[in-house]
């Protein structure tokens, strides 16, 4: 069981239509060949809403339609049927892009530009003034911790560095809605943790995040609601905690229990006709072990902790 917890989400209130940031109605995408014959049904009649201020996850295996959905919402693809609305406008309306940021699956950036030039270019596309661009670029480069490499061309960057720049360009306009396509894919555990923390911070700032991933553990850690797609169809939709909670099992964690106390607890359960499933010491996650080792190494370089057998 992961000890990483999501930040507590706001109390649920009845949501009005204006709280809906993304809305799809019967959204369908079928790829056709040159002669118009259907080849691949990438998405079939998808209905979902994404509400303001939540982190929404699109899950599914490869080829389930996750990226297709995001591309339809961005206007990179046109629907075969149904509609997709972003901020109430059709997805093909370019003006909606003023309010969104997009991190593609791979950071498709111009390798011959350096970090500053890259962010400056995208800032200009948002019609930002020179002063505003300079300020924002400085903030973002500091946020992604690439100040030391800002003058190097992107072709010299590692994957993690490129991903961070990709994220920075997605946030250049301080968007209200951020679409992340496989944000943690290819990142090491530290990078993954940082990405997840950032996503949570964005939510806490009131932004809406739509992310798609096939890495279930990452989605579970951050998402408020998820939709599960399989072969273009929506299979499940709802809050993560609701979907994942096992209603008929009670989990208790306690510290400092003696053997006698444990015996007594077993007897109480039996008295109430319950069934003891397990009583054992919980395990941490490999992620937490890795992060703690890294933290300790940074504090005490050269020291190696060896567990006694």
């Amino acid at each position, binding site marked *: 069981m992961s000890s990483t917890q999501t930040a507590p989400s706001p109390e649920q209130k009845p949501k009005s239509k204006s709280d809906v940031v993304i809305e799809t109605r019967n959204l369908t995408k079928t*790829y*056709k060949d040159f002669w*118009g014959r259907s080849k691949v049904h990438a998405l079939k009649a998808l209905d979902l809403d994404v509400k303001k201020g939540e982190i929404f996850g699109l899950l599914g295996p490869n080829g389930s339609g996750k990226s297709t959905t995001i*591309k339809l919402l*961005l*206007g*990179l*693809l*046109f629907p*075969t049927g149904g509609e997709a609305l972003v901020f109430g406008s*059709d997805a*093909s*309306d*370019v*003006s909606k*892009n*003023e309010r*969104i940021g*997009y991190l*593609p699956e*791979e950071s*498709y*950036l*111009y390798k*011959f*530009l350096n970090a500053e*030039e890259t962010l400056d*270019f*995208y800032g*200009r*596309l*948002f*019609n930002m003034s020179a002063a505003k661009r300079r300020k924002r670029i400085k903030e973002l480069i500091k946020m992604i911790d690439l100040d030391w490499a800002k003058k190097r061309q992107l072709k010299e960057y590692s994957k993690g560095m490129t991903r961070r720049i990709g994220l920075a*360009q997605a946030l250049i306009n301080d968007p209200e809605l951020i679409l992340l396509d496989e944000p943690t894919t290819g990142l090491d555990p530290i990078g993954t943790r940082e990405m997840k923390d950032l996503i949570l911070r964005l939510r806490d700032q009131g932004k809406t995040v739509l992310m798609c991933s096939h890495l279930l553990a990452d989605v579970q850690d951050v998402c408020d609601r998820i939709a599960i797609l399989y072969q273009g169809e929506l299979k499940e939709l709802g809050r993560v905690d609701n979907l994942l909670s096992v209603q008929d099992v009670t989990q208790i964690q306690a510290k400092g229990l003696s053997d006698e106390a444990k015996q007594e607890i077993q007897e109480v359960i039996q008295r109430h006709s319950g069934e003891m499933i397990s009583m054992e010491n919980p395990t941490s996650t490999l992620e937490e072990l890795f992060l703690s080792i890294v933290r300790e190494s940074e504090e005490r370089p050269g020291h190696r902790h060896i567990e006694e057998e």
Partner: protein
Amino acid sequence: MVVDPSEFIPFGDWFSAAFMPFLWTIVTLLAGGLAFWFVQLAVRRHPRVAVDMIGRTLHSSIFKDLPSTSLRRILAMARLAIHEALRSRVLVIFAIFVVLLLFAGWFLDVENDHPARLYLTFVLSSTSYLIIALAMFLSAFSLPNDIKNRTIYTITTKPVRSHEIFMGRVIGFAAVGTILLLMMGTISYMFVWRGLDHTHTIDVADLNYDSDRREWTGRTSFDRHHFHDVIISNETKRGIAMTSKGHQHEITVIGEGTDVQFEVGPPVGDLLARVPVYGELSFLDRYGNQTESGLSVGKSWGYRTYIEGNTLNTAIWKFGDKGKSPITSDTFPDEKIPLEMDLRVFRTNRGDIESQIRGEVILMSTDPIAKVQESLPINFEATEFATLRMDIPFGDVKYLDPISAKPVSVDVFNDLIVNGELKVGIRCKEHAQFFGMARADLYLRGPDQSFIVNFAKSYVGIWMQMLLVTLFGVFFSTFLNGIISLKATLAIIVLGTFAGFITAIQTGEASTGGGPIQALVRGVTQQGAETELNVSDGARGVIEALDGAYLWTMNVVSQIAPRYPEFNTADKVAYGYDISMDLLLRHLTVTFGYFMVISIIGTLILRSREVAA
């Protein structure tokens, strides 16, 4: 020099005549494009969906995207295009150009009679080819590479409009080409000037002195593969090295007596920008009657027609228009009629091969009640393949007084040019010899313009060609991949260059044996092009239909494609003629027209394209 008849039309007249056909062409192209778009969507989706999609795209493009145009975004896209061009090592083109100039001496003909023309043609042609090649490669691959590498995702997901992407690319690549052109133009000018700059020496011992005329005659030294004959006046202390290799030198006398020396100045007259004032050409036949054209002497190229010698066969140029552009005393500020002519000679017998064929100029009035209808002939000798300049002083213009039957001086403006119009007639004096001429072969020479400015104007012509190629390259790249875009752009250049020839093929003027399918059948079945095609009626029908469709398509596309040769003004500069503002304005207007239309169509195609498909 060959001059296209369309160049005689003033810009205002040309624009008035061309505007409506241009509009109709645009409407037809747009309607055809919309129809194709509709059919494609209707077949693949549904007619209702097609109407909805096309309607929404057009509506949002016109009423939402266009008003939201941002210059900052366009310039950002342009800057990106410039970065991209610089990273793809476009300066290699500049390096190739410099290397060509450095080694030009190895392959340019140093014995050429007109080195200025040779140098100018060389630099202008090489600049033109290199810059057009650059424009093709840059423009054809840029967008397809963006789509292939998916870098376009991070652009189209920003609030960037399709027309901003399109125009940014065009402007960016045009900017790179412009900077390169400036560099190449500067170096070209220095190359030409440096290559032509030279002088000679004159040794007084090699000259003959005529004490009656008080002048020296002789020759200069042999430098740069030529020498000049000289005439130097001891009175004015000035002389001239006569024309050789298309130029002259001014000579200054320094000193006196046995210490006299001669200083030869730099070459003059080889880098010119003459301003020809063209007239309208008509003919009189051998009996003096009006006729439509001159004679044919059997040459296949009909640009020039001929007049027969020792007859009343006359070629007449009419200058001025009393309504629009009358001839006034300002036209002849030096009180001379400055004629230049570039006549051809057709000999039916050798005659005196050492002498030129003699002709005569007659000045005529267009007013039937003018005091002087026709001047006495002024003789000249035709200089074939060289421009002959005749400055006819007013005092030399005489007519035969009907009362005294003696030659009398003419008051040119009161007696001859009475209504702002003047006719100049040319006759050949020698029996069985012919003079050939076209409208542009005789003109009044206006005050020369600056050669440097004219040279720069020719680079404007190259710039327009580059812009058109860039435009078409980016246009094709909105829906084709890189290689195919490149080929399509090249095809447009070829079709535009040979448009006249393609039309002649379609109409059968330029070839026999039908179109490509028929030619293939003839080749396989070994039937000659002049014989009737020996196939069944059905097969002939199919072949002719296919050929007809193919040739019709080629003809239509070639008519729409820009006529690149018309933008090429290298010949004018090389031959020393000013590129008129009328011509420049016309080219700029045509370029702007293409820019508008191609941008609109390219934008709509990009707008309707699924970049992630």
